[in-house]
């Protein structure tokens, strides 16, 4: 079974600064997806960024980028130019891409609460 670990329960960043959220995972599969989701107080789960394991290039979405280290099974999220609206719970998630898709459930880490100081 796959596991996702987010060891930092909370982090804080100054507005306009950069912050990195850590995530490690464990799997025996070679083909999978990794995600970062943002969950603000409204509890809406919002997709931030996605990484396909077969791609060596790190995914980037505007101010959000990842550092994907497949051998180390590490998937960190970097938020640049932090904004007050970035304050939320962030979840790292794993999804298998092997077989017919029947194992396509998301496995989440425990999440990290990010606060942004004005």
């Amino acid at each position: 079974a796959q596991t996702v670990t987010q060891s930092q329960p909370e982090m804080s960043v100054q507005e306009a600064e950069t912050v990195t959220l850590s995530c490690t995972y464990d799997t025996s599969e070679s083909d999978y997806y990794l995600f970062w989701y943002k969950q603000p107080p409204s509890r809406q789960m919002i997709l931030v960024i996605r990484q396909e394991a077969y791609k060596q290039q790190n995914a980037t979405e505007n101010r959000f980028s990842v550092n994907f280290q497949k051998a180390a099974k590490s998937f960190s999220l970097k938020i640049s130019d932090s904004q007050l609206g970035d304050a939320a719970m962030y979840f790292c998630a794993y999804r298998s891409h092997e077989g017919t898709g029947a194992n396509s459930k998301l496995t989440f880490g425990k999440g990290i609460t990010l606060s942004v100081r004005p």
Partner: protein
Amino acid sequence: DAGVTQSPTHLIKTRGQQVTLRCSPKSGHDTVSWYQQALGQEPQFIFQYYEEEERQRGNFPDRFSGHQFPNYSSELNVNALLLGDSALYLCASSLLAGNTIYFGEGSWLTVV
């Protein structure tokens, strides 16, 4: 393009009662999954529906059941409610082998 929609948004039930939650997937998506998120915890996978069949199930008792309709919408039913069933229930939609999963805003269930 409508995203994933869920209803009701909030509801309160009494122990022992039954509840039905509803979900309409994002346009073009054929797969619906349900997750339970207790307060302060990560979402936990309940089950997934594709082609009107349950394809995968998490570690939840048989009190939790579901259905998918020909239009891909889905229902989650929970029987004999327990206090511990109080949680946010999230519906997620995707293509079966797609690489992106979108979530609805969730249904808050409080069991008293």
